[in-house]
């Protein structure tokens, strides 16, 4: 009897075992390449390897006990996910568009109801104060949050230097207006320049700082260089960036977001889980980098220090 011994499949057609075992990898790679090519033609932004802005270390600053228990977000998060409408309304706009902002020389005007009004060069403005690092939680009104190691000095130190008049009750801050360097200002998304304000006792609170750096380096432009406000118990938009003017006044300043949508944003804007934004609940927040949302804490967790500022006030009315 004749047995047919020729195999049904020629050996040349048999896939090499090693290749066969890697077939999934291959298909995956092919898919990634195909999609990648498609994405490339659609102009999808690639993940940036190195930042395009200068990174300069702050030579001298002290560590402080603030926030030692918190784990800061990635540097990339804090420097590429920004609300800074002066450079565009998308989160990636500031890091993409803020490069041309000239922060040297920079003048800060201090005026209004103060005994010592002056126009300061930034270097002279900062020089008298010891810089320290403060690791603060930052809660955005849009329901996300980060932990950021700021470098700065207490706003109170500055106010003590310039000596508010006895009639002064509020501090008003103003951002640079320069549509040439701040392309977002070419459209009336908000009324420019951006204005923020604090009650004088809030401004004197030791937690409120003027920041000049983060993560051990001077502020990148997209984070509000060269100097910005950080008030950790309030929603992030109170932290006005690229400040050119600090004015003491006896009238409550009209801050930009209140002017834009008074039913949604108030003057105080203290972080408060029990006061909803009209369009979303503020009870929880997504810490950038996490999936599950955390419960939002009243005064962003700084209630022990700041709640006394608002004793007897209706925080639902004064949102």
């Amino acid at each position: 009897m004749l047995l047919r011994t020729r195999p049904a499949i020629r050996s040349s057609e048999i896939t090499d075992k090693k290749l066969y075992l890697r077939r999934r990898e291959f298909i995956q790679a092919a898919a990634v390449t195909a999609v990648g090519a498609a994405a490339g033609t659609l102009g999808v932004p690639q993940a940036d390897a190195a930042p395009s802005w200068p990174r300069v270390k702050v030579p001298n600053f002290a560590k402080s006990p603030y926030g030692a228990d918190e784990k800061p977000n990635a540097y990339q998060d804090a420097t590429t996910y920004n609300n800074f409408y002066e450079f565009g309304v998308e989160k990636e706009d500031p890091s993409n568009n803020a490069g041309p902002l000239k922060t040297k020389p920079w003048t800060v005007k201090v005026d209004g109801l103060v005994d010592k009004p002056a126009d300061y060069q930034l270097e002279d403005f900062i020089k008298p104060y010891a810089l320290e690092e403060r690791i603060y939680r930052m809660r955005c009104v849009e329901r996300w949050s980060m932990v950021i190691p700021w470098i700065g000095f207490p706003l109170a130190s500055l106010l003590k230097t310039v000596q508010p008049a006895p009639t002064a009750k509020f501090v008003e801050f103003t951002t640079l207006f320069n549509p040439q360097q701040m392309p977002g200002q070419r459209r009336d998304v908000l009324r420019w320049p951006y204005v923020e304000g604090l009650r004088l006792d809030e401004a004197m609170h030791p937690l409120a700082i003027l920041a000049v750096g983060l993560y051990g380096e001077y502020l990148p432009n997209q984070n509000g260089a060269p100097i910005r406000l950080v008030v950790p118990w309030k929603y992030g938009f109170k932290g006005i960036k690229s400040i050119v003017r600090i004015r003491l006044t006896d009238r409550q300043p009209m801050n930009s977001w209140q002017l834009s949508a008074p039913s949604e944003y108030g003057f105080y804007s203290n972080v408060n889980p029990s006061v909803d934004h009209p369009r979303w609940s503020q009870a929880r927040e997504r810490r950038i980098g996490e999936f599950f949302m955390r419960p939002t804490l009243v005064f962003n967790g700084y209630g022990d220090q700041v709640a006394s500022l608002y004793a007897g006030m209706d925080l639902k009315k004064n949102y």
Partner: protein
Amino acid sequence: MKPTVLAAGLLPLLVLIWRAFNAALGANPLLEITHETGDWTLRFIVITLAITPVRRLTGWHALIRFRRMMGLYAFFYGSLHFLIYVIADRFAGLDFRDGIWAWSTARGLVASIWEDVYKRPYITVGFIGLAAMAPLAVTSTTGWIRRLGGRNWNRLHRLIYATAVAGVIHYWWLVKADILHPAIYASLVALLLGFRAFRT
């Protein structure tokens, strides 16, 4: 031609997946995916609405072959948009009193979605827009056209006009200050619906 268009409709999804695997979705990827799928829903609605005017203006009648497909893609991206919202915005915000795998989680999720749909006008209108597309997706087959008859089918499928309006309002109400993008969609939808209202 048809397979090419079919594949092209999947491209936005593939790009999103590619970006997800290449850490190119930014610091808040869940929100980015939510916004992208929402944007593509509106784009496919606009494309669907544009087919009839373009046919009439150019005489390129073969386009009609793609209308149902474009409408189905609008529903597809709308459903993805809703699914991502349910997972990233509702599920992730539950308190999981009895752990994740519990009946209370399912109940809490339904309650949380319902509360949002009921309480937040921009969610309400978005939900209505998506819900209005569901019967259109179901009856998108040739069998259903035959069963309903061409005239009834066409009448039913005018519901897409409501979805288009709802979609634009949904977007408009959710932006914080810059209404440029919703305004662009609003003008496109107004133009395409206006074409139907004013043609003789």
